[in-house]
Each structure stands twice: as C-alpha cells, then as structure tokens.
C-alpha cells in the first residue's frame, strides 16, 4: 500500500498540472478566436482578388505572365513548409512535417535539386536536423501573422521563379477545417494556376462591362504576384488558426485526463487512509483484549 504522504503529494502535483493545462486551453481558445477573425478579415480581399483575376484571365486567355508559365526545364523544386513556432499541440506540426517528407520523397527524384523554405520553428528544427543542406530560407513565424511577412516570402519565391532559379514551388501547410480537424495540405504555388470561373457566362458578361486600362496585360502583371502573396498569406493564417485549435483540443483532453487521474488517486488515498485507521483500531482492540 502506497504511503499516505506520497499519494497526497502526487495529487498535489497532478492538480497543479491541471491548472496549467486548463489555463493553456483558455489562452488557446482566446487566440483561436483572434486567428479566426484574421481569416474572416482576409476573406473580402481574397474574394475580390479572385473574381477580378477570373475576369481578367478570361479576357487574356493565352496572355502569359512569367509566374503562369510552366518551366520546360524542371531542374529545381522548392518546398515551402509552414508549421507553428511552439509545440504542445498534439500531432499538428508532426503531420505537416510528415506531409512535407512524403512530398520530398515522392517528387524529389524528378528534380536535380530540392530547396526548402521553412516558416515556423518546428519545421526549422526538424529540417535542420535532417536536411540542413537543402534549406534555402528559414524563419520563425514570430507573433501574429502579418501580410507583410507573407508578401516578403512570396515575392522572394516569385523573384527566384522568374529568374529561373526555381522551376516549381509547392506549399505544405495545415488547413484549418474546424476546431477539431486540421488537415495537412499540399498545393502548387508556382507556376500559378489562375482560378477558373465556374459561372463562365455570368462572369464574361460582367467582364465586358469593365474597361481595362491601360490593357489586360498590365493588369495581369499587377494581379498575379498579388494572388501568389494572398495564397501564402492564407496558408499562414490557416496554420495560425489550426495551431491554436490543435492546442486547445490537446489541452482540453489533457485537462480531462488529469481529472480522471485525480479521482483515481483520491480513491486510493481514501482507501489507504481507511486501511491505516482500521489497522490502528485493530491494534487498540487487541491491546485491550490482552489486558482482560
């Protein structure tokens, strides 16, 4: 039978763990709400950008932009991996890294060289250990996601793509599906595929109503790089919301586990206490009987 004092001490330590996990859960919940708001805020811009791009790319079907062109020579692949800076979020980061490793294993052989652009400390830590030589850019997320950060990364990738240093860019990140679900997603960033209009007729009608100045090519030149930036920005926002959601869920189940553990330990403690009392009683009774 475990020592009474030992059990008491364990209960105490589990209780303080519970305080930490439940506090972390609440912090994650608050951050998740903010992250979801950021996604909402970004939506109008992305939607308008998309619809404009649809209109313009309809008008200039074969008009190409360097970022839309598929490179014939497929020499270099760049994989952009986005994770969070911090752990304690269940398999959130591990899933993204696994998805990235799968892509590297699958597509790596098609190219002469493969580069890694890493955003988020967890990705940086992992690939520094396993593929340090392939890293071309590594940076932590560092606080709240800003558009500027996404734009800087996207512009650098676009510049290298236009210069012919990179022939394809793939983006790996966790998509925020819901609070309970985050799924790793792999999408092609460059060459950029302009969105295809679904209701083609309606869009064509609307497009004809707009005069494009000076010409569609110039507009496309302004639009395409921005659409690429928006993709990276969206991935960063999804990753941010997903991180907090994953941490919230993880901490909730951790809190539940501590509750169970406390219950079990309390039961054990009471049993041990009862056993001790019974033992003492037996001693007293036997002592009294001995006197008779």
């Amino acid at each position: 039978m475990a020592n009474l004092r030992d059990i008491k001490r364990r209960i105490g330590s589990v209780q303080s763990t519970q305080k930490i996990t439940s506090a972390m859960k609440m912090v994650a919940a608050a951050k998740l709400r903010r992250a979801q708001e950021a996604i909402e805020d970004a939506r109008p811009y992305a939607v308008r950008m998309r619809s404009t791009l649809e209109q313009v790319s309809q008008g200039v079907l074969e008009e190409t932009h360097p970022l839309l062109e598929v490179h014939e020579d497929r020499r270099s692949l760049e994989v952009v991996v986005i994770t969070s800076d911090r752990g304690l979020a269940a398999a959130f980061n591990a899933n993204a890294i696994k998805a990235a490793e799968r892509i590297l294993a699958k597509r790596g052989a098609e190219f002469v060289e493969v580069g890694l652009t890493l955003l988020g400390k967890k990705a940086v830590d992992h690939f520094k250990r396993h593929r340090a030589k392939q890293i071309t850019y590594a940076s932590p997320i560092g606080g709240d996601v800003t558009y500027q950060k996404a734009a800087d990364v996207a512009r650098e990738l676009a510049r290298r793509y236009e210069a012919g240093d990179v022939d394809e860019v793939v983006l790996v990140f966790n998509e925020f599906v819901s609070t309970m679900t985050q799924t790793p997603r792999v999408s092609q960033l460059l060459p950029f595929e302009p969105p295809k209009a679904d209701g083609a007729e309606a869009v064509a009608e609307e497009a004809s109503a707009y005069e494009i100045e000076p010409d569609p090519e110039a507009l496309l030149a302004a639009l395409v790089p921005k659409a690429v930036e928006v993709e990276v920005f969206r991935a960063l926002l999804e990753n941010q919301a997903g991180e907090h959601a994953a941490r919230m869920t993880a901490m909730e189940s951790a809190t539940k586990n501590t509750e169970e553990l406390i219950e079990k330990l309390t039961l054990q403690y009471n049993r041990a206490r009862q056993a001790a009392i019974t033992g003492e009683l037996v001693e007293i009774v036997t002592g009294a009987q001995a006197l008779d």
Partner: protein
Amino acid sequence: MALELVVVTPEGEALSETVEQVVLPGEAGEFGVLESHERFLTPLSPGPMQIVRGGANREWAAISSGFAEVDGAHVVVLVDRCRRASEIDHAETEARRVEAADALAALPEDEEHAGERLRLAGVVATAELELDVVGR
C-alpha cells in the same frame, strides 16, 4: 455626391465611406474619380490617395500597389496596405525608414542578397511615402 469608396486590404477593410471625389495613384499617372465615372479596372502604384469629402474637407492616405475597380457609384481599392495620414506615427515611421536604409547600405551588392535588397528598398519606399503623406 454619392461615391462609395471602399479600401480593402488583406488585413481587413481599411476604409468605407461616401465621398465626393477620390484621387488615386494609377500606374499610368494620377487620376481622379467622381460620381458616374465610366466603369473601369486599373492597376495602382504605391502613392498618395486623396479623399475629397466636399469643399476643403480633404484627407490623405498612403497606399501600396494594388488595383482599383470603378463603376458609377463605387470605387473599390484593393491594396496590400493603406495608412491614413491620421494613423501614421511620424517618429515610428522615421525610425523604420532609418533602420531599413542602414540595413540596405550595409548589404553587399551581389546576387545572393538581391531579394533582401529588394525587400529593404520596399520598406524604405513605403516609409518615405508615409512620411510624405503625413506632411501634407
């Protein structure tokens, strides 16, 4: 006067109000938009945007590159960044400009740093524009 001006950035709606006229920095030069302007779409360069609310009530804002969608009653401006003159902190902006300019001057002029040089030049240009706007 019923021209609805909406400025949308990736971080949310920066501005939404009814104005008399708006002057935008188009890629082909500055242009003004009044009510019942013909519908058109055009790219914008980074520059000052002037909002005219009637008579002497004018306001300046610094916008980044992007584009504008105009129809008779609306002007939708899609840009990465929009700072109204009243939102710009002079000291903070100046500090940002100096920091980026110093970092830029310290970078070697080779191919390896081309991306970083471009980025810093962008930061300097944005800060200079914002300082210009706040001084108007």
